[in-house]
């Protein structure tokens, strides 16, 4: 299997705090990779650096074998790396459907004149965006909520909408930052099904998650961060019994 995402030696400081120190992360094509670690370990920072939200101090970044410099989020998204946010960032005032339609932005190309005069080509494109957004809503199970304002959705549904919106950018790698946070047991089970479904449809997933059962259950590979450094990486079964991981994150009771 080839590596879809391969980053190495990533470092990032915030003032005097070394948030990331020579971190490496490999994501194989078609797999689900989990990124775990205690709070403040630097998981979200690594996400933010990889997706171009924060500039990295150092690091080598390869996406599908091609070097990229994560300087602009929009370019990273166009390249095929979409993400969700730990603290949900939906467009609250727009409807659920419109949120997903915004996701289609970078795969559509109507220009200003096309939009002003609503040219036939723009009209066709708009129709296809709408169709695509509706099918994505059906895909994540939100069809019934299309015309509701996003801010009025329940927490679990907001998480799903964020995933649908990210999928609308047609990513090859979907990076999810704690998608199960705040979900109840049933919602977590449904999320698990959704993630497996997405993977089976050929989209690679990178996952930050604190729910150990979910992570151990669906991930093919795990990378564990602590104090901005990788302390373990490998198959879930191996990581689970790694002494460093038990000490820093899982705790003795988990063995």
């Amino acid at each position, binding site marked *: 299997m080839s590596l879809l995402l391969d980053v190495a030696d990533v470092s990032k400081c915030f003032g005097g705090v070394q948030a990331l120190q020579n971190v490496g992360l490999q994501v194989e094509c078609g797999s689900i990779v989990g990124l775990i670690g205690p709070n403040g370990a630097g998981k979200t920072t690594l996400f933010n650096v990889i997706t171009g939200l924060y500039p990295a101090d150092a690091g080598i970044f390869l996406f599908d074998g091609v070097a990229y410099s994560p300087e602009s989020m929009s370019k990273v*998204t166009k390249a095929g790396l979409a993400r969700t946010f730990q603290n949900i960032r939906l*467009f609250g005032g727009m409807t659920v459907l419109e949120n997903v339609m915004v996701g289609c*932005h970078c795969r559509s190309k*109507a220009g200003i004149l096309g*939009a002003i005069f609503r040219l036939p080509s723009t009209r066709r494109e708009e129709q296809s965006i709408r169709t695509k957004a509706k099918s994505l809503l059906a895909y994540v199970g939100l069809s019934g909520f299309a015309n509701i304002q996003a801010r009025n959705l329940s927490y679990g549904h907001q998480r799903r909408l964020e995933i649908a919106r990210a999928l609308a950018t047609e990513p090859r790698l979907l990076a999810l930052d704690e998608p199960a946070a705040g979900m109840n047991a049933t919602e977590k089970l449904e999320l698990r099904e959704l993630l497996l479904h997405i993977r089976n449809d050929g989209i690679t997933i990178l996952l930050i998650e604190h729910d150990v059962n979910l992570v151990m259950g669906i991930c093919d590979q795990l990378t564990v961060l602590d104090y901005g450094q990788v302390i373990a990486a490998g198959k879930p079964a191996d990581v689970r019994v790694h002494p460093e991981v038990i000490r820093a994150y899982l705790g003795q009771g988990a063995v």
Partner: protein
Amino acid sequence: MLKRIPILRGCPYWLFGLLALLLLPWLVGASGGNYWVRVLDFALLYIVLALGLNVVVGFAGLLDLGYVAFYALGAYSYALLASPHLPHQFEALATAFPEGMHYSVLLVAVLAIFIAAVFGILLGLPTLALRGDYLAIVTLGFGEIIRILMNNLDRPLNLTNGPKGIASIDPIHFFGMNFAKPIDLGFISVPGLYLVFYLFLLLAIGVAIVCLHLQNSRIGRAWIAIREDEIAAKAMGINTRNMKLLAFAIGASFAGLAGVFFAAFQGFVSPESFTLWESIVVLAMVVLGGIGHIPGVILGAVLLAIFPEVLRSVAQPVQNFLFGHAVVDVEVIRQLIYGLALILVMLYRPGGIWQKRGDV
């Protein structure tokens, strides 16, 4: 109700609306005189202005307090290209244009749209990283710079004639039609003010349609996404820099367009028409009507353009009726009630008088 009348059965409602709008200047003119038709004409120009500002503030969420600068650019473009001012000042121009400079209002409108858009981008470029209050202060400064330039560009070269302003600007004229004179249709003579009303009505409807198209397009959604959450918008692959510049350019071009017709309609421009107060009035139209909601913005523009004039005309008679004489100066009480009305609307309808459904 009207549909009960047999002939009218099957007519869509908007046809009634259009008919009412076509009759409006005649009704207003007959009952209130030309003064009120002028007020209506200006209300239509304010609709164009407010819709333009709504693109910047309402859609993209960029607070712009210098919006009137683009209106000034449009107005001065026409004032310079269709008045005796420049040929008077410069010998070379006088010989080049022995008949005087009389560029068509349509030609200058296209030019002004372009000029204003370029200046919109020039204003946008240094302010890309700014948001909210900070952006408001920079745009406020920009608006003042343009006004002060107009005020002082009378020396060493007299370009704008300074505070005295430029007079004798050509009235609106194109395709052999002159909107300053009545047109005789054989059975009826349509006064110039009414013609201007129809022209501005066309302009306002056109701009409203463009705004609607933009709102329901990929670009409009990108603007609203930036307003709602800029980081998430970037994560959707939206080039926020270009989209913000585009919003500034489009908003500015509407103001430039309105400015050209303002100059042609007034026949006179001076820096006094383009003060910060004017920017704030247009912003108030957008916010009071329903920020980001096109019908609301139109309503806000109409109300705030007409309301002060209504107050002006009723303040005196009402006081005479109540007290037998004027207790408070008309101008003072007008400002007082105007301000009070703004406060009340914002207190009880913080989203605007006519906000989008679901935004409550």
